[in-house]
């Protein structure tokens, strides 16, 4: 009997202790739960552990969602940045790199990348090294231009500015911008020079004639005036031809046999060639190579190239003209063994008014429009033109035109075809001036 009582009381006591411990744990859990839930708006001080866990779960999935969204945003920003700039580098206040992304084209060459890295470091140091006032730091930026010879030759602009918590550097490729700027400047210089020179000469001669009494002198001077006027006329004639080619790109298209055009042009220039003792050789297949073109325009283009070859070849030199089929295109090459074209000038000789060396070509009478005209004619016909040259050895001009076929795209790149235009000269000038 007593044993039963003792066991029962022990059990009761154990149960009581257990109950008390559990109760205190529950109380602690509830306090914790209510503290955690405190800012979620629930003012139930008796929040259960269950509610608490559910809420925590909800917050976790919320965080995961936010993280993946910000990851998407980050990818988006990186994508946009890479379209706009060549490279980005961000570093924190302590100077450690936080983010770095360079485009592949920038990483292509070891030495190029090393130089860019050095420049980026320099600008970042300049920006973060200074102690800036609030006003200064808002707009403060440091810029450095880096000209790389590559190849390819590039002009990079590296700018750095202050960010909250650090600094960032951007690398932009300004090669194209710079090229257009130089082109524009030179074009304006050239065109004004071409017109000003003969007009100035004429007005000076006219003034002198007005004061002059002696008849023979007047005679000599007026002859000079006439030759200046002729020069101006030829300038205007060439400008007019350029305008014609640009305004009327179609011309009168018909099927032309390229070999016939070449033979015709060579015959026309036989006199000029023999005068300089230059031997002109033509090589072409017997099979006629046919293109859809305006006879006059194509002949004018070939004439221009051959005339240049003769002009810049040494006396007794050789000029060869080669016509052949290359894939879907007709290819015409004019090769000379003349003085060649300096590397610097090769990419620019097709620009309007561009001349390699004024002193060299002034006596030849050109004003630098010839090759621009040729280029327009070729592009209008859906073709392309290129030059390969080495100073002292000679130049080869290569002209490609699409063969006359039923269904066939032109063999020029899309860019060139788009650039050809129905622009008038004035609109062309305006375009050049406004592109920057």
């Amino acid at each position, binding site marked *: 009997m007593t044993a039963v009582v003792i066991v029962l009381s022990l059990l009761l006591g154990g149960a009581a202790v257990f109950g008390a411990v559990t109760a205190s744990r529950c109380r602690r859990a509830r306090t914790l739960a209510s503290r955690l839930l405190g800012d979620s708006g629930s003012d139930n001080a008796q929040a259960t552990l269950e509610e608490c866990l559910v809420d925590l779960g909800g917050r976790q999935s919320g965080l995961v969602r936010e993280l993946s969204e910000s990851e998407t945003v980050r990818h988006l920003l990186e994508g946009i940045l890479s379209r706009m700039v060549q490279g980005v580098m961000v570093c924190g206040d302590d100077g450690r790199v936080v983010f770095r992304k360079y485009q592949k084209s920038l990483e292509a060459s*070891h*030495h190029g990348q090393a130089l860019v*890295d050095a420049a980026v470091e320099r600008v970042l140091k300049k920006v973060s090294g200074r102690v800036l006032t609030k006003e200064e730091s808002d707009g403060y930026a440091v810029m450095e231009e880096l000209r790389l*010879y590559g190849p390819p030759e590039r002009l990079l602009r590296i700018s750095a500015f202050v960010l909250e918590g650090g600094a960032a550097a951007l690398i932009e490729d300004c090669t194209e911008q710079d090229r257009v700027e130089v082109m524009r400047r030179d074009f304006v210089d050239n065109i004004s020079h071409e017109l000003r020179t003969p007009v100035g000469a004429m007005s000076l001669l006219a003034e002198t004639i007005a004061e002059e009494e002696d008849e023979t002198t007047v005679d000599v001077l007026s002859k000079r005036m006439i030759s200046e006027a002729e020069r101006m006329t030829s300038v205007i004639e060439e400008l007019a031809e350029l305008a014609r080619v640009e305004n009327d790109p179609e011309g009168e298209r018909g099927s032309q046999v390229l070999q016939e055009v070449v033979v015709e042009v060579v015959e026309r220039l036989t006199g000029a060639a023999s005068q300089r003792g230059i031997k002109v050789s033509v090589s072409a297949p017997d099979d006629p190579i046919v293109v859809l073109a305006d006879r006059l325009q194509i002949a004018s283009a070939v004439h221009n190239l051959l005339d240049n070859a003769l002009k810049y070849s040494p006396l007794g030199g050789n000029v060869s003209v080669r016509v052949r089929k290359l894939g879907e295109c007709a290819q015409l090459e004019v090769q000379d063994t003349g003085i060649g074209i*300096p*590397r*610097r000038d090769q990419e620019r000789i097709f620009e309007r008014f561009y001349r390699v060396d004024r002193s060299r070509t002034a006596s030849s009478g050109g004003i630098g429009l010839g090759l621009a005209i040729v280029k327009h004619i070729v592009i209008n016909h859906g073709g392309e033109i290129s030059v390969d040259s080495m100073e*002292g050895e000679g130049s080869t001009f290569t002209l490609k035109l699409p063969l006359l076929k039923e269904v066939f795209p032109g063999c020029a790149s899309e860019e060139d075809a788009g650039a050809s235009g129905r622009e008038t000269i004035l609109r062309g000038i305006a375009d050049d001036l406004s592109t920057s």
Partner: protein
Amino acid sequence: MAESFRQQFREELDQVKAGIVRMAGLVTESIPRCTEALLSGDLAAAREMVEADSDVDSASLALEHKCHQLLALQQPTAGDLRELLAALVINYEIERSGGLVVNIAKSMRRIYPVELGPRMRGVVTQMGEESRRLFQFAIDSYAENNAGLAAALDDIDDRLDRLNHQCLALIISSEGTERVERSTGIQLALIARYYERIGDHAVNIGGRVRYMVDAWRPSQEVIEETTEDDHVNETGERAGE
């Protein structure tokens, strides 16, 4: 603990390599810049180049010191040791090449304002391009540990040697409108030699890269072969080729 030492050492080696590539980049870029200044008679650019060489010199000294430090403090062995030894010599070759570019710039000033004829300009342009190309290949082979490319440099250099001879022949045989005056001719011959020497330094860098990667060293046969080539070249020059 050992791991982090190893890692730190590796990082320092990488830093040395990056430093050398950066310095080489300055020289590689200076070669076409110099050729252009030479061909366009740009005195301002020539002066800039002469002054900018001090950057290369100070970088070279700093790198050399760093290499010495690493050798003394880290006592590397095997591949790492070869890497540091190669770096020391390559550092020197690059610094010398930078000096050669300065020499070209100074010679250009001595020629000024004489304008060169088209054939001479053509040869000079080609020499400038070839030497730059060769130097870039040498640096690429070092940066990429590319022993194959390094081994090819000697053959690629042949073209530059031929151009050098071509230039000398042009000077000797010049006449008429392309006639080269004696003092100009001497400077031009020196300029041609400077370009050719840059090529030689590039080939040497290639040799060190092969040493670094494969522990390759020129065998006695190769040394004799190269000396023979030099004799042939000299005879060729004397014969007026």
